[in-house]
C-alpha cells in the first residue's frame, strides 16, 4: 500500500480545507479539522473517520439532533448515526455548560457513530478543572471503550475491553459524565470489567499519547496515498478558477 509522508502543519492545512469544503461555514470547520487531526496524530483513524463521514449525506443544521431532553444533571440527545464530527463538540459543550451549572452532567447520545471522536473533547473538560468519563460499546466487536480524565491533564486514560457478554441489539450510544468532583461509583463501574476478568485489549495512557504525537511532530504523518488523493480532491473544491484579474494580486 502506498503512503505519503506529510508534516503536521500540512495535515492541518489540508484537513482545514477539506472541512471547509465539506461543512462550509455552517459549522466550525476549523475545529472539526482539529478533531480529525488530533485523532490522526494519535493513531485513532482521524482521516478514515472523516472520509467515512464525508461519504454519507450531511445532516442539515435544523436536524442537528432528533431530540434533546433535559432535566437537572441529565441530558439525552439522539443522533441519527450518520455524522458526528460536526456535532460532537456541540454535544460536549452542552454537557460542559450543564456541568458548570449543576456540578455534574450525565449525557447520553443515542444512535451515534464514531464515538472515539469524543476523546479530543475530554482535554477541554479537564483544562476547565472538571473530571470526565466517556464510555460506549462497539457492538460488532463486543468492545467496551472507556476514557477517563482528571482535571488539568493533557490526555485521558483510554481502555478498550473485550466483553464476555453484553445485551444484544444494542443501539450505538455514547455516555458522558462531566463532574466537578470525582465520582467513586463511576470509578467502580468502569473498573468492574477488569475485576470480572474481561480482557483489556488496549490501554492508552498519557505517555502513549505523547509518544504518538512526538513521533508525528518529528517525522510527520504517513497517510495512505489514496486517502490523501481523496482529501486533496475535496479540498480543491474551495479553490476558484484563476483569471488575469485574479493574478493582479500575485505580483507583476
Amino acid at each position, binding site marked *: 500500500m502506498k503512503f505519503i509522508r506529510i508534516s503536521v*502543519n500540512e495535515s492541518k492545512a489540508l484537513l482545514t480545507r477539506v472541512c471547509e469544503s465539506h461543512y462550509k461555514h455552517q459549522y466550525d470547520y476549523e475545529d472539526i479539522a482539529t478533531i480529525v487531526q488530533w485523532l490522526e496524530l494519535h493513531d485513532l483513524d482521524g482521516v478514515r473517520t472523516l472520509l467515512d463521514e464525508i461519504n454519507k449525506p450531511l445532516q442539515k443544521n435544523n436536524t442537528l439532533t432528533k431530540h434533546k431532553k433535559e432535566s437537572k444533571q441529565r441530558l439525552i440527545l439522539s443522533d441519527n448515526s450518520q455524522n458526528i464530527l460536526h456535532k460532537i463538540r456541540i454535544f460536549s*459543550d*452542552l454537557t460542559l455548560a450543564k456541568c458548570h451549572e449543576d456540578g455534574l452532567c450525565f449525557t447520553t447520545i443515542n444512535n451515534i457513530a464514531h464515538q472515539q471522536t469524543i476523546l479530543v473533547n475530554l482535554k477541554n473538560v479537564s483544562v476547565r478543572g472538571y473530571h470526565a468519563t466517556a464510555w460506549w460499546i462497539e457492538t460488532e466487536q463486543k468492545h467496551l471503550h472507556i476514557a477517563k480524565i482528571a482535571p488539568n491533564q493533557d490526555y485521558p486514560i483510554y481502555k478498550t475491553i473485550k466483553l464476555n457478554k453484553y445485551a444484544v441489539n444494542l443501539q450505538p450510544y455514547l455516555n458522558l459524565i462531566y463532574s466537578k468532583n470525582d465520582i467513586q461509583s463511576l470509578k467502580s463501574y468502569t473498573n468492574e470489567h477488569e475485576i470480572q476478568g474481561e480482557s483489556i485489549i488496549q490501554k492508552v495512557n498519557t505517555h502513549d499519547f505523547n509518544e504518538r504525537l512526538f513521533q508525528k511532530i518529528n517525522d*510527520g504523518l504517513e497517510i495512505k496515498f489514496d486517502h490523501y488523493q481523496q482529501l486533496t480532491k475535496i479540498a480543491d473544491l474551495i*479553490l476558484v478558477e484563476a483569471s488575469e484579474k485574479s493574478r493582479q494580486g500575485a505580483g507583476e
Partner: protein
Amino acid sequence: MGSLNHQLEAKDIGLRTPEVVMDLKRLGSFYPYKLSFMRKLIRKVMTEKWDISLTLFNLDKDGFGEAVYEIKTPLNNFHFVVFANFLDPELRSDRVIAEAWDMTVTLRQGVFNPKDLIFLKENVPLQEKGRMTSNSVVLSRANKSSRNFDYVINELSSGKQPCIKKINEVGYLYRTTAVYGSGKFGMADWDKVKTSYADFSEPFSAEMFSCFLIRQFSLDQADHIAHQRNPKTAVKLNESIKRYIGIGNATGLGMAPFLIKHPLLINNWIETRERVLAKVLNDTSPDKNKLATFLLLVSRAIIHLNQITTSNLTQKEININVSDDLNLIASYVTEQQDKIKKWQQVTQYVAENFSIEAQELINTVLIEIYPEEALLFEKNQEIKEIYDLIPEMKLSKLKTIIQNQYQWALKYNFKSENADAIFWYRSEEKMEPRLGERNIDKGADKEMLIGIARSIEQCYSTIQNLSPELKINNVAEFIFAHPEYRQIIRRIQTMSKTTYGEIQANLNDKDVLPIHLLRCKLSFFGVGKFDPKSRLWVRNTMFQGAPIVSDISNEYKDEWFFPVMPNIESSKGNEIH
C-alpha cells in the same frame, strides 16, 4: 487575565488604546523597529558569532551550479544549499505562480553528505512540486534583478566598483518571491523547529536567516562571475557596497490572511511594540545626548526616505510628506530642547500636527534610542494559539463583550452594497488568496472567512433577534441552535482577554486596502523601502545595511537602522583578486 483587568493594566502602563493602534491605516504606517525579526536575528548571529562557511562552491563561469554553506551555531549544525540555474529571461516572473527561478534554496539541519545533494537537486528547484525531508527547515527561491545584476558584474569584471546611486535605485541583486517554512512540503514542523532547532525558536527566524544567506550568495556569486569573466581586471565588490545591497522581496495578498487568522500572535507582536514604546515614554527623560541622538536618527530617516526609489505616486508623496514632517519635527525639537522634559511632549506635538506615518516613524526612532529598554522585551513570549470555546458563558455576557470590545465591528452597515462589496477567495493557482468583487467575479460561494467585522455583526444580530421562547441561556445552547457561529464566538471570547489582535477594519469594504496588512506584517519582519505596485502587492528590501557574513567575527554595532547610501567613490576598485 480577565478582559477588564487587562484593560486596566494597559491603561495603567500607558499603552495606547486598540482603537488607535489597530486602525488599518496606522498598522500600514508601521516601520521596522529594534525588535523586528531581522534585527533580532542579526543580533543573535553576531553576538553568538555563528560560524558560516562555504563548503561547496561548484559554479560554472556564468555562476550556474550548486553551493553549500555550513552554519555552526552554539546549539546545532545547519546547511544552506543553493541551486543556481539558467533561467530564460522570458520565464522570469515575481509571481508566486511562476514555475522556474534563477536561484532555489533550502536550509536544513544535520550532517550533509553527497547523496543529500542528489535528492535536493531533484526536489529543491521544483519548489512547491517537490517534497522535502523532515530535517529541512526552509524552502525558498529568488530571481535576479536584471537591472542591477548584469550592471554590477560588468563593472566588477572591468575593474570598477558599481555606482552606489545605481545600486540604490533597486537596492538588491536578487529578490525572493516566496519563503516557505513551518512544515510546508514535508519540512520540519514549527513545533519541531522551536524545540529541536532552538536557534530558530523565534517566529520566522529561520525564514529570515535564509533570506540573509540568499543575499550572501548573491554577493558571492557576483564576485565569482566577475572574476570568471575577466580574471585579470576583475575586482571584488566593495564591502560597504555589499552591506548596502539587500535582498529584494515581492509580497502579495498571500500574506494578508495570516494577520486575520492568527490574532493571538498578532496581539503579541503589537503588544510587545506598544509596551516598549510605553516604557520609553514613561520611564525615560530626554537629556542632551538623547536629544542629539534623536535628531541624528531623524535626519538619517529623512535621508533614507529621500533615497527610496518608487514609481508609486502615493508612496512617493507619502515619503516626501513624511520627510517634510520630520524636518519640521526636528526644527521643533531643536528649538524647544531646553523645554522638553518628557518625550510625551514630542509625541503629543507630533500627534497633533503631523501624519500617522510621521507619528509611527517618530515612535520607531524613540524606541531605537533606548536599546536597553527595548531589549528587555527581546525574548519572545511563546504564544499558544488556542481559541477554546467557553460554553457556559451566559449569552448576556457575550453580548456585553461584543458591545464593549467589538463596537468597531458593529458600526458597519453590511446591508449597504459597498460594505460587503469585496470577497476573499483562494485561487486554484497555488491556493493563493485573492480579492473578488461580489456580483461581478466568480467565487463568492467559496469565500474565505476573512471578514471578521461582518461575522461579528451577523452573530450579534442573531443574538439580538433570538426569540425569548427558545429560552437560550448560555453560549452552548446558542451554538446548539446556531452552529455557524461557534468559530467566531471562540474568537470573541479569546480575544476579549487581549488588548490588541483584532484589526479594526472591514475587510469586505469596496475600498479596502490590503496593502496596509502587508506592510504591517513586513514591518514586524524588519522589511523596509516599501515600493507598492498596486493596492494588492508591494516590493520591499530586506537586510539593506545589515552586516555580511565576513563581519561576523567583528565587533557588532546594532545600527543598521534606516540604511542610507554609503559614501563611496564608484570608480575605485579597492579589493583586487
